[in-house]
């Protein structure tokens, strides 16, 4: 027989528990329990009145059975009876049963309330304690109605025992949480605040919990708690380790109370009173100092308790976010913990640092730990620690380290736990977008994301990449080329097919000049994936096909054949069938100009909050991410600005930058046979001057438009009352393809419509242009399209002239515009390090290799716009290369058929004088 039971051992209970323990199977256990339940039920229903001891024993058994996971539907009445017993042991079991088993809407509450009322009035502190515990644990509305008036009185009465005060404080807290309307603030509130000064630390501990909750809801009423909490905290942290006797835990004075006081202070901003503020700063410094002192005990409990206080102090420092010195110290302390051998500390340090990263004072300090955090991602054996590391990397990310962090996250994604993959995908997508300067990097990142974790890439992510590609014409060609290459993989994720289908449908023409990605090859590639895809993806691909019909008239019949096949026209899926029928019909009956209008390139999407961010917020729950994001937004307000299509405003800002020094890389081996690079240096100067035209004087206003096209490829080149000329072009290495759209703005036909592209003799040798003739009649309101294939043979300065002659209502019209084919279109960006750049820069000693031009900018120079210009110009924008951050540095290679010429560029803005050197 077990002798372990203490005190008034209930023998029957011990036997029962032993029986249960000896049960060999779950079935045996259930059988034994049912037998016992039947026994107890019969005892309770029996004629013989049970004595207190028996009732207590049976109630205790029921409690044990409940703990084993069996519902108890009787015995409540007996428990309530025990409450009115005068024996402490019986009363105690009754209360225990009720607070464990009775929920707040039980019909027994009225009876229970009666018993509680009696015990509260008994003046017996032990009974009062039991009654108050019960209210604190059950806390129903009926209880609040009965006792909300009484309890504050007990709490602040001078003669109440300390232990009763403690219970009363938490009892009031419970009633306030369940029914705040029944607990009005009153004159007791100020007296509650003064409990922080109570001699008894147990009372202070209980009161701090109560005050913290009340202060969150009524900060004004409890403002005075700040100074009291600070002075209490100060007394604790400066006390000798033995002063607080039993409240000292392994030489740490009152650690739990300290934590609670620090929590309470987090309900308020830093204290206004300089004296209080000074005292608090002293406390926090003391806590930080203690972390560096040798431990007073080798026991782990000592350091754990000390660190609990330390982490809470750091939370307060972060919450105040006003003392740079403390913030940096906190960061250093956490940095030490990042390498601590205790996993718990590493976890908490990562978590804490995450909030520290959003403070402007400590953001830089946090960033210094990037290598440690990345290492944690790679080596931690605990997924929750790795998850914290991901969170921290996300929080510490900014422009300076985005590439590294995104690369590490992608790396980690390959092996990450399934449970956190989706979140990482969202984070990578957000960071890549937010900090992309070079949108080719953004496109690469997202495609990588799909490759590595395609299943976890939600719709929001791939919608977003398409929005961005459509809104930024500087990345469209690259995106088309990249998705085309990614689709070559034998097995690619369906999400990639979606993105690829969409992008090629819009911008496939930009890479069609390359024979390796000719229209037919693009189509065949996409169609080879078609049958493996789900219905929504197939529907998307069908739309891509009809877009191809417009982009590539040469493969129209192939596409029509596919649409016409039974598997499409008679597809069991209504959506697919409908699309196939409609698209086939559209491609058959519509004229090219109607097709061109219907299937025009998607207009830019309006800028709005990234849906990915919204999704991450939803995933993390409101509050957590939002705050961080808000803070970050304030810090770098430009991050969204950079995502807007920069070239849209080109007409308003014109271009201050491109005619800065452009020089050849004479020393680079690939430029051996380059002609004197000075010619390319003067390119843009020449490009802006009028060139003589044999056919017709240049149309007025066309020069302005021409200048705009230096940095962009698509848009309206010319417009008058009759005619609009639009351009869409793409260049890759030394090849290019330009679509010229002629729109008849009138309602009358144009007759004898003959556009011709004219090159001067000089230009003919260096630029090879092929055009197809167009239909000589253009109907009113219609648009015709002309394709120009371009090959750059060697460097050139002039621009070709587009001459258009036609008859409109009997009058002969003749006009000429310069076609914006400039040398920089064959410019491919090159990334290089600061060292490389300046080494090459210095090698360019020959005066012929260098051109310097000082000009007055026509418009205020905005850094972001200028960056977009340099990228639009075709060179790579090299950040953090020039020692002066205000300067812009670019590099790239000009591709011609005969040679490749490296070019370096530096733009030194002088903002005051609005002059660039």
């Amino acid at each position, binding site marked *: 027989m077990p002798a372990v039971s203490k005190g008034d051992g209930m023998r029957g209970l011990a036997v029962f528990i032993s029986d249960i323990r000896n049960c060999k199977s779950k079935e045996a256990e259930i059988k034994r329990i049912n037998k016992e339940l039947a026994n107890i039920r019969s005892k309770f229903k029996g004629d013989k009145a049970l004595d207190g001891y028996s009732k207590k024993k049976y109630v*205790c058994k029921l409690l044990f059975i409940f*703990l084993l996971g069996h519902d108890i539907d009787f015995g409540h009445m007996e428990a309530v009876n025990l409450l009115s017993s005068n024996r402490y042991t019986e009363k105690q079991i009754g209360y*225990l049963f009720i607070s464990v088993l009775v929920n707040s809407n039980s019909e027994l509450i009225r009876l229970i309330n009666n018993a509680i009322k009696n015990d509260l009035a008994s003046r017996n502190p032990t009974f009062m304690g039991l009654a108050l*515990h019960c209210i604190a644990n059950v806390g129903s509305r009926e209880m609040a109605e009965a006792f909300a008036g009484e309890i504050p009185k007990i709490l602040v009465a001078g003669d109440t025992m300390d232990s009763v005060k403690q219970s009363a404080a938490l009892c009031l*807290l419970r009633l306030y949480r369940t029914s705040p309307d029944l607990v009005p603030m009153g004159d007791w509130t100020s007296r509650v605040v003064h409990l922080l000064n109570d001699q008894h630390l147990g009372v202070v501990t*209980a009161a701090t919990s109560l005050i913290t909750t009340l202060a969150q809801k009524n900060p004004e009423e409890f403002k005075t708690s700040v100074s009291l909490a600070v002075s209490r905290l100060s007394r604790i942290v400066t006390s000798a380790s033995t002063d607080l006797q039993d*409240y000292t835990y392994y030489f740490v004075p009152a650690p739990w109370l300290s934590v609670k006081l620090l929590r309470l202070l987090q309900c308020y901003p830093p204290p206004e009173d300089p004296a209080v503020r000074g005292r608090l700063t002293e406390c926090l410094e003391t806590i930080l100092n203690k972390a560096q002192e040798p431990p007073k005990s080798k026991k782990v409990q000592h350091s754990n308790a000390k660190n609990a206080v330390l*982490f809470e102090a750091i939370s307060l420092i972060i919450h105040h976010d006003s003392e740079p010195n403390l913030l940096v110290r906190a960061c250093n302390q956490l940095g030490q913990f990042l390498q601590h051998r205790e996993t*718990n500390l590493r976890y908490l340090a990562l978590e804490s640092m995450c909030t520290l990263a959003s403070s402007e004072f400590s953001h830089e300090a946090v960033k210094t730990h990037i290598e440690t955090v990345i290492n944690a991602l790679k080596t931690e054996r605990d997924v929750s620690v790795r998850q914290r590391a991901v969170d921290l990397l996300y929080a510490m990310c900014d422009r300076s380290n985005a590439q590294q962090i995104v690369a590490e996250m992608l790396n980690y994604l390959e092996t990450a736990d399934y449970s956190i993959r989706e979140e990482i995908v969202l984070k990578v997508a957000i960071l890549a977008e937010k900090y992309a300067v070079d949108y080719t990097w953004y496109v690469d990142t997202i495609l990588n994301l799909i490759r590595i974790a395609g299943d976890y890439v939600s719709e929001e992510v791939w919608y977003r990449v398409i929005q961005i590609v459509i809104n930024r014409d500087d990345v469209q060609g690259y995106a088309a080329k990249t998705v085309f290459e990614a689709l070559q993989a034998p097995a690619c994720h369906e999400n990639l097919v979606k993105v690829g289908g969409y992008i090629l449908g819009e911008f496939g023409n930009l890479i069609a000049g390359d024979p390796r990605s000719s229209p037919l090859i693009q189509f065949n590639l996409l169609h080879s994936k078609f049958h493996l895809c789900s219905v929504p993806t197939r529907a998307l691909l069908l739309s891509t096909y009809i877009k191809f019909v417009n982009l590539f008239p040469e493969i129209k019949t192939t596409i029509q054949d596919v649409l016409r096949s039974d598997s499409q026209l008679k597809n069991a899926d209504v959506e697919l069938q409908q699309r196939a029928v409609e698209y086939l019909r559209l491609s058959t009956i519509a004229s090219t100009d109607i097709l061109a209008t219907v299937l025009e390139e998607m207009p830019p999407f309006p800028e709005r909050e990234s849906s990915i961010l919204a999704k991450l917020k939803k995933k993390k729950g409101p509050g957590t991410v939002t705050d961080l994001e808000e803070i970050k937004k304030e810090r770098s307000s430009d991050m969204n600005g950079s995502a807007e299509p920069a070239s849209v405003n080109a007409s308003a800002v014109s271009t201050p930058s491109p005619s800065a020094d452009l020089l050849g890389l004479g020393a680079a081996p690939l430029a051996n046979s380059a002609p004197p690079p000075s010619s390319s240096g003067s390119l843009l100067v020449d490009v802006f001057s009028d060139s003589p035209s044999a056919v017709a004087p240049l149309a007025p206003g066309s020069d302005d438009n021409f200048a705009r096209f230096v940095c962009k490829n698509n848009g309206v080149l010319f417009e008058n009352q009759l005619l609009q000329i639009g351009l869409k072009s793409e260049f890759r290495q030394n090849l290019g393809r330009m679509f010229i759209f002629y729109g008849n703005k009138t309602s009358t036909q144009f007759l004898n419509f003959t556009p011709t592209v004219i090159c001067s003799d000089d230009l003919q040798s260096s630029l090879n242009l092929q055009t197809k003739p167009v239909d000589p009649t253009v109907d009113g309101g219609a648009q015709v399209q002309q394709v120009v294939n371009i090959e750059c043979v060697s460097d050139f300065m002039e621009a070709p002239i587009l001459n258009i002659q036609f008859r409109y209502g009997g009058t002969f019209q003749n006009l000429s515009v310069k076609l914006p084919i400039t040398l920089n279109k064959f410019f491919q960006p090159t990334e290089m390090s600061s060292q490389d750049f300046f080494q090459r820069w210095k090698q360019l000693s020959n005066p012929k290799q260098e051109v310097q031009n000082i000009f007055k900018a026509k418009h205020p120079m905005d850094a972001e716009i200028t960056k977009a210009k340099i990228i639009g110009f075709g060179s790579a924008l090299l950040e953090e290369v020039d020692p002066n951050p205000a300067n812009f540095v670019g590099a790239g290679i000009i591709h011609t058929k005969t040679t490749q010429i490296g070019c370096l560029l530096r733009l030194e803005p002088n903002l005051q004088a609005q002059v660039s050197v």
Partner: protein
Amino acid sequence: MIKFFLMVNKQGQTRLSRYYEHVEINKRTMLEAEVIKNCLSRSKDQCSFIEYKDFKLVYRQYAALFIVVGINETENEMAVYELIHNFVEVLDKYFSRVSELDIMFNLDRVHIILDEMVLNGCIVETNRTRILAPLYVLDKVAES
């Protein structure tokens, strides 16, 4: 705030459970099973905090017995972690070297100790002498 306080052995048998927010009995059983599964699957070099649904579990293992506390974000993990140890030390003092059997056979007393330390989800007392005071009163009454 502390949401619940559990003592579960390695076989997954609950030895003590205290909820500070009402949870239906069938949900309790499920939650306890999941919680112990989570704890058992972890090794010594993993940290003692587990994110679980919308709260955190802080756990410590003593021989074959796990003590698991569910907390929300307003609680300090390290403080709760040491609270568990303080609780065990109080049990140790009262039972002189506490074992799982002590807890099973003296469930009412373990509850009293816990109620003295944690009330309504808040830490209310940490002083060992004062935690045990009402229990000693009880024992005295029982003896007489």
